[in-house]
């Protein structure tokens, strides 16, 4: 294997990590507040609002039911408007973020709902406002579960980023398609797959380590 290929694989790995991390970050910037609003406005939440909950619920369900590849294509005009082009790593971050956000919102919602109602009640009995409950009780008590959720999300987005490679998204997925599929260079394809597996393992390991280090429930 020549140096050019190694160079390419290294760049591909960096691109993939970049896309995955940045998309997850943006995904959380949108998904975390939405997840909080879902939890708060649900009928057992601290400030129930049936209409708001229903609207968010429907939007999330619709977005999550669109297959990622279709979303990628549907978003091309929007991506072009935002980044100036519709291919390459930075452009891929747009559809990745948009498909991750509703997924993240659901993850956050389910983590926050694990917080015991008794603890919330105790905080209310101390005169805590809803803001205090969200920032000092819900998010703090659920932190381990939130981090586990983020780890799972990271793995999912890593997979999606590879998928985006099929339409010129850059990164390892892109390399796998170009060399493995279009040029029948199976060895390069296998190496990219191995690299993806290793990245996935590293993300999972780090995420779970952090989660268990921060958990004081046992």
């Amino acid at each position: 294997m020549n140096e050019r290929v190694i160079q390419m694989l290294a760049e591909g790995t960096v691109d993939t990590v970049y896309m995955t991390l940045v998309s997850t970050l943006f995904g959380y910037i949108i998904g975390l507040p939405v997840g909080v609003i879902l939890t708060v406005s649900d009928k057992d939440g601290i400030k129930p609002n049936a209409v708001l909950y229903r609207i968010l619920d429907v939007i999330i369900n619709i977005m999550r039911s669109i297959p990622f590849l279709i979303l990628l294509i549907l978003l091309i005009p929007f991506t072009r408007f935002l980044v100036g082009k519709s291919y390459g790593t930075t452009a891929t971050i747009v559809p990745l973020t948009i498909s991750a956000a509703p997924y993240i919102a659901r993850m956050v919602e389910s983590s926050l709902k694990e917080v015991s109602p008794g603890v919330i009640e105790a905080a209310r009995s101390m005169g805590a406002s809803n803001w205090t409950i969200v920032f000092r009780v819900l998010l703090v008590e659920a932190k381990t579960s939130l981090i586990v959720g983020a780890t799972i999300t990271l793995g999912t987005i890593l997979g999606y980023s590879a998928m985006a490679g099929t339409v010129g998204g850059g990164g390892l997925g892109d390399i796998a398609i170009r060399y493995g599929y279009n040029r029948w260079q199976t060895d390069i394809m296998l190496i990219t797959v191995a690299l993806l597996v290793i990245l996935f393992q590293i993300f999972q390991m780090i995420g779970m380590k952090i989660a268990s280090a921060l958990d004081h429930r046992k």
Partner: protein
Amino acid sequence: MSVIEVKHLSKTFQQKDLKVDALSDINLSIEKGDIYGIIGMSGAGKSTLVRCLNFLERPSDGQVLIDGQDLGALDEKQLRAQRMKIAMIFQNFNLLMQKNAVDNIIFPLQIQGKPRKEARQRAKELLETVGLADKAKSYPSQLSGGQQQRVAIARALACDPSILLCDEATSALDPQTTESILNLLKEINEKMGITIVIITHQMSVIQKICNRVAIIENGHLVEHGNVVDIFNHPKSRAARELILRDATGGGTASFGENAQVDEIREGQKLRIVYSANSAFEPVIANMILQFGHPVNILRANTKNVGGVAKGDMLLQLPDDRELRFKMEDYLKEKGLEIEEVDDDE
């Protein structure tokens, strides 16, 4: 002025088409320094009532006045400020699982906006008060139930409340731990002058530390007054049931208890109350000797307090009517208060 005054309080829960009247027209007044017990069977409405006292639950009707202030007249912000003066502890402790003992106690002080250093200092003092100075850095999962409840009590005291509400605070604890938590509550009441409201389904808890008690049944307040009066002369069926059921402090119905009830179906049952002036002498033994006929002691719950017997006893007398009346007279003569207990209770 009463510290807590409840006027015509009702609470109805609407569940789909089903309406549940959890509380109906409750009237209560709790005075400063009281340890006020609220007792009733499961589902009677105790938790709902105590949650109405700090408006965690808004009553459907009626008023709650704290130091004369009508909670219903307060806006959200004023209500939150008022709640800081009404602390609460729970059956399941409800500590923040991701914070250690000190940080749990600091939490309400943070809500109040106290400076971090001052809050930490106060938390340390409170841990000392509840006897857990060495557990400051422990997380709830590393503490026993009793220790967790102590942390919860320290947390409740952090904001210098004038009232402490306890919803089944000892129900998840074993008898020894219950005893120690009750002693702590009593100490808090005496030393800090905090008015305490205790919700329980165990008469033994009421007997141990409360001075006054209210009995609720199916959302109605059926009897209230001094603990001694109600314990010695219960008027309502619910009160008698609670007193009789709570045999040895356990309280919760178990297989053993049911078996006992079955055994004592026949024969007149008699409850003897040792009030203040009954001497601690073997009255029952003497009675048996005198009449030459055995009686069945179904339960005894007496204590020798400075030579004076306190508590009560449940006897099963012989079927023979004449003998029974003689025995009852004998007991009355000895200065005991007696009360016939119906079999169907």
